[in-house]
């Protein structure tokens, strides 16, 4: 086994996901299959090989530090499930 049910439960907690018992069972199996497959990367000698994280523009895009219009507050709040006209409203953080 490449991954145990306990490990999947841990990762699900990190990812803020809850899985039902059946879903947990199914996904653990699928993750195990996938991780067994990707182990084939161990065949490749990558000693001293640099990582590629992005293939495009490698430099920062600079602009003048001037104020430009940005998203209006009412637009930013328009899609919120709950707001008070000024802020996003969420359930209590500390319980």
């Amino acid at each position, binding site marked *: 086994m490449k991954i145990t049910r306990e490990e999947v439960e841990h990762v*699900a907690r990190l990812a803020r996901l809850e899985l039902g018992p059946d879903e947990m069972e199914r996904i653990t199996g699928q993750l195990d299959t996938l991780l067994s497959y990707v182990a084939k990367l161990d065949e490749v000698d990558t000693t001293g090989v640099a990582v590629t994280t992005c293939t495009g523009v490698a430099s920062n*895009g600079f602009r003048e530090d001037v104020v430009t219009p940005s998203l209006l507050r009412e637009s930013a709040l328009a899609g919120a499930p709950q707001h008070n006209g000024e802020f996003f409203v969420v359930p209590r953080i500390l319980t």
Partner: protein
Amino acid sequence: MDLFTLTLSEAKAMLDRGECTSVQLTKSVLARIDAVEERVNSFITLRGEDALAQAARADKARQQGRAGALCGLPLAIKDVLCTSTMPTTCGSRILEHFLPPYDATVIEKLQDEGAVLLGKLAMDEFAMGSTSENCAFGTPHNPWRLGYVAGGSSGGSAACVAADECLASLGSDTGGSIRQPASLCGIVGMKPTYGRVSRYGLVAFASSLDQVGPMTKDVRDCALLMNVISGHDRRDATSSPNPVPDFTAALLNGLKGLRVGVPAEYFGAGLDPEVERVVRGALRMLADGGAEIIEVSLPHTEYCVAVYYLIAPAEASSNLARYDGVRYGYRDMQASSLLDMYRRSRSAGFGGEVKKRILIGTYALSAGYYDAYYKKASQVRTLIREDFDRAFASCDLIASPVTPTPAWPIGDKGDDPLALYLSDILTISANLAGIPGMSVPAGFSREGLPIGLQLQAAHFNEEILLRAAWNLEQRAGIRGRRPELS
């Protein structure tokens, strides 16, 4: 003649000559949608009345001499691109009622050129899938055989064009999501070079791999749309400042002097004999036209799927953390604490495939596993990129199949996680290397299913792809062949 059958360039010519109006053209397309959409199921959101209002405005602009490059031409958009006038669901319950507060840059560009936007198209949830079966709002069917997949993740975009429900569409491609459905539905699809087209307003899946691209009825239309959507955007730091050529100019050149590399690794076990027959036939057509066919090697091809299914989920697990029920999207209102709200909202809002990929990605990035999985994959990604660098030292483009098989029945690859992932093996590498790739119709299987030829070139060499694809299109003799929708 039915106006809905026209390509962009044909319709544009008729509009320019005053032989039809955009309102007539749009009405024809809407009537076509009315007649076939029940069978094709390509739209998530359809806005017929609004499209007619846009068409009337386009006709007026044309009368006043203000006709843009796409003035009055009806297009449809993969539901992964933000539109401030239409919901943008990404095929997910979590964004079911999401109306973005702004338009994607590519949407602005289409509108600036006068395009008529019909609606938003079906896709695998958050573009994760190869069949569009992961769409929360229904699966599009392949117009060439109903009950068969249109491919994915831009399956709605491909089916819509193939069924003449729009003149052209936009898709997005993270591991083949434009090229694969284009091939399965017999249309033209291009994934541009990473950075060629702005990703601003493209809902992020895997940010180092995602690109927006055209899905069209022919190669000329692909070039036409590339002219409109390409270019630097200050709102996307990864968009390239490279100058944008007139892509339609590339269509004037023949094949003489073109060196076409054929990688043996793309013709391995699992390749359907019908696909191989059609692709080899297309290679002969390129050779007959004067292209030189040479062998090239991409030795790390067999590792592409493993690299992709670590890197793409890793990036996705980070990108999809934003769906937290706070600022937009679905929230479980019963939750008693913030953490509970995150968990309940995400668990109810995301479908199974998306949850699975978030978990893979979170795992691959988590403490103790980062070096073994994410870092290792990113190193092999370098080797894959270098394979292409070496190959392009001896050839101008690489030709291959797009997919190992033609389309298959909906539901056929069910719950086998690897079978479907492995079907992406021929398209993934272009995203990992950041190079442009396209699918152009090359022929049909004996059963009458379309088969595309994949062309790949070095960074920012889309013109070479278009030139080869256009010449193949002239020679293949299948342009204009239409599905019967049965």
